[in-house]
């Protein structure tokens, strides 16, 4: 914390400021510092020291407060949204923001669950680690069906940067040789359960259009840069002192620190980006120091905005000036608009009578994946929706958490629930969400959060295409489960649920035309050439695969471009 207090008024100008330390902020910091730039990374959340400060890591079950039951009184008060996440519990709680510190508003009748990280490392600390490349069709979809503006780049532009990032974040997976589901630079794949191998064989016979592959996961199966392969303790979101899953903390931050070029400043909430109309460039940022409450200014030649999708838009909309009365880099008026999230639904559940005598050892933090098989290479004749979805699959041997609901008192009940129940096959579809102008965030200037920022108001709803797609998911999941050999199928009940894939993106989209997009093909603002936005905010469409890898590849590519301009003295 050498930057406290006094630096704000010094004349030091950093080569770059990176706003945010999550998935993409970490990549930006690593890339820029390794190219010799002096970088200041600002993070709103509190410091967290890897590897020693994961308070919940390897907690024995009996040390968890309340036996792991949700602390509902506390959660209703302080964590009403965050506590809905599958990855939230008493042992991971330190990684999340407190909703009571920074509430958000929603347009009436809409329901979007906004999950946020509260530490250095952001959501990379408790992400799901599924890691997939976009396919070539994802970059052409907008141009082909006319929803959203055309992407300014194509798959070939990003492919080398996927490789570049995959090599240092570490991705385990199986190559499948599909054009629409590109292979990457993989460590050896994780093993399948016996039932998964059986399902794979059956699908090959009875549903040969379906590819069923082990999840591609940013969890190591081989050593990498001082990080150890996974030890299969199973509770990744608590943090991993062996660095076995990728996070800013395990990978990009140590690499950036090693260069000696990075200054990290936690508890530094960026309020706005400062714009100089004389030069037409951003000159720095205004920060609220969360410890002292002081308002500080930091200067830089280049700004990388990586505050996470909605916060990045919030900061731009809050950065008003005479030149940009509607928010910085927003001459187009698109900033805050075209918010997307994946059309995610737990769908049909299959129950199996196979492999009752097969079990497992080790907790594999990964499932299997069915890549998109609908509307590939043109619209399927029987599909009344555009684009497609992938399906995350988990075989689960049920235990007492599921079977305790049965009737019974005494020895028989105890004996029944201590033993494994049947195998089930759970499917969760992640579908593409079209970019809709009316899905957006705005600011409510009349209210401020603990960071002194105007509250975000969110309007996020799925449209007809997403609803039609969900119906198709239910039908296809039924076909897949039958082909896989399920003896009973519990169908999706179709109930409306909050939008909560935690894949929110859009709001500062890329595009070819400065009138209809905020960023060019290098994630560079059309309006402000030394401003780059490389987190999920930059997305022009949503694809259907888990997005973090794509954000990271964009970030590395943009950082390379920015550093080249910096070297030439153009920025």
């Amino acid at each position: 914390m050498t930057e406290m207090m006094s630096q704000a008024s010094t004349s030091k100008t950093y080569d770059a400021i990176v706003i945010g330390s999550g998935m993409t902020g970490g990549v930006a910091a690593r890339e820029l510092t390794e190219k010799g730039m002096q970088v200041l990374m600002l993070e709103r959340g509190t410091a967290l020291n890897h590897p020693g400060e994961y308070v919940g890591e390897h907690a024995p079950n009996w040390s968890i407060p309340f036996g792991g039951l949700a602390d509902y009184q506390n959660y209703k008060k302080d964590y009403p949204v965050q506590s809905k996440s599958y990855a939230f519990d008493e042992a991971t709680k330190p990684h999340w923001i407190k909703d009571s510190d920074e509430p958000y508003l929603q347009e009436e009748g809409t329901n979007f669950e906004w999950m946020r990280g509260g530490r250095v490392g952001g959501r990379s600390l408790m992400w799901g680690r599924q890691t997939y490349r976009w396919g070539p069709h994802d970059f052409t979809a907008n141009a082909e069906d006319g929803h959203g503006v055309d992407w300014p780049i194509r798959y070939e532009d990003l492919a080398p940067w996927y490789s570049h990032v995959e090599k240092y974040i570490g991705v385990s997976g199986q190559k499948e040789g599909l054009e629409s589901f590109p292979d990457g630079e993989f460590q050896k794949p994780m093993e399948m359960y016996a039932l998964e191998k059986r399902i794979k064989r059956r699908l090959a016979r009875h549903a040969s259009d379906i590819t069923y592959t082990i999840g591609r996961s940013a969890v190591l199966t081989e050593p990498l840069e001082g990080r150890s392969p996974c030890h299969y303790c199973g509770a990744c979101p608590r943090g991993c002192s062996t660095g076995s899953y990728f996070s800013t903390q395990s990978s990009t931050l140590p690499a950036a620190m090693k260069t000696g070029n990075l200054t990290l400043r936690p508890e530094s909430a960026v309020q706005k980006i400062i714009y100089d109309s004389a030069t037409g460039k951003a000159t720095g940022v205004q920060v609220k120091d969360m410890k002292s409450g002081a308002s500080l200014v930091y200067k830089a030649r280049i700004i990388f905005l990586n505050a996470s999708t909605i916060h990045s838009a919030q900061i731009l909309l809050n950065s008003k000036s005479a030149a940009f009365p509607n928010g910085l880099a927003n001459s187009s008026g698109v900033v805050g608009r075209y918010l997307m999230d994946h059309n995610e639904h737990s769908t049909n559940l299959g129950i199996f009578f196979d492999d009752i005598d097969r079990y497992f050892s080790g907790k594999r933090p990964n499932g299997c994946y069915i890549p998109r098989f609908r509307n590939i290479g043109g619209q399927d004749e029987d599909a009344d929706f555009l684009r497609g979805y992938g399906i995350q699959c988990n075989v689960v041997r049920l235990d007492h958490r599921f079977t305790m609901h049965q009737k019974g008192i005494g020895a028989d009940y105890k004996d029944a629930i201590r033993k494994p129940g049947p195998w089930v096959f759970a499917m969760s579809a992640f579908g593409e969400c079209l970019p809709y102008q009316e899905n957006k965030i705005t600011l409510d200037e009349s209210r401020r959060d603990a960071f002194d920022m105007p509250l975000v108001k969110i309007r996020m709803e799925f449209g007809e295409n997403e609803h039609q797609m969900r119906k198709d998911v239910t039908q296809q999941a039924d076909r897949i489960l039958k082909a896989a050999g399920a003896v009973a199928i519990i169908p999706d009940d179709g109930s409306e649920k909050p939008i909560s894939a935690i894949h929110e993106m859009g709001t500062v989209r890329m595009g070819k035309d400065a009138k209809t997009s905020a960023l060019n093909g290098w994630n560079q603002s059309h309006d402000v050439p030394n401003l780059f936005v490389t987190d999920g905010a930059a997305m022009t469409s949503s694809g259907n695969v888990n997005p973090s890898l794509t954000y990271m590849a964009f970030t590395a590519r943009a950082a390379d471009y920015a550093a080249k301009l910096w070297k030439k003295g153009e920025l």
Partner: protein
Amino acid sequence: MAIGQGTAGMSFPRRDFLLAAAVTATGGAIMYSKGLAAMLADGDHSGHDMPMMGRPAYVDQAVEVFSTEKRALVSAMAETLLPQTGTPGAIDAQVPKFLELLYDQWMAAPEKQLFDRGLAETDRQAQAAHGKVFADCEAAEQKVVLEKMEEEQGDHPWFNFGGTSVADDQDDIPFMALFKEITVVGFFMSEVGAQQVLRYDMMPGNFDGDTSLGYDDSSWASVPFM
């Protein structure tokens, strides 16, 4: 087999566990997680929270909110649901104390009232059927009382396959749903329940998806997010 209060840890060498958990096997070599080891060695844990793995078991804390009679009733009920068989029962696993801690620290006022009403109803039914309070009934009589109560309350969705948790949905839950869930959770999350009734391996080191399972083998103790 009974393990009394204040002996948590005797069945599991906590020190060895801390060391074991702070290392991970990598290709035969043992690599220390230096940060965690240093943090555990740091006597006063200045500047950060004590890691959970170094904390005592949740039930290893004092609680004194139940009367002697209430404690006897809760103990008898928990043991009736999950009795000592060839393996430890609810009392061995300190589940009664777990329930008292939940009553003190976890339940909101409506759930406390629900819990108290359920206890009173249990004694009322024991008196009506057997002429004595629940704790004084024979084990077979106790089982009949709880079975009857479950029958009366058992058409609630909590009893559906894979039903929801009372922690997520407190609306209209019947007493028996609350009682069963918190007793089962307290039992299987305990040091005794996880290791002597279920199986527990904090640091497996590798994954094998095709091991054999005998007819009488127990599940692994659960891991969150799995």
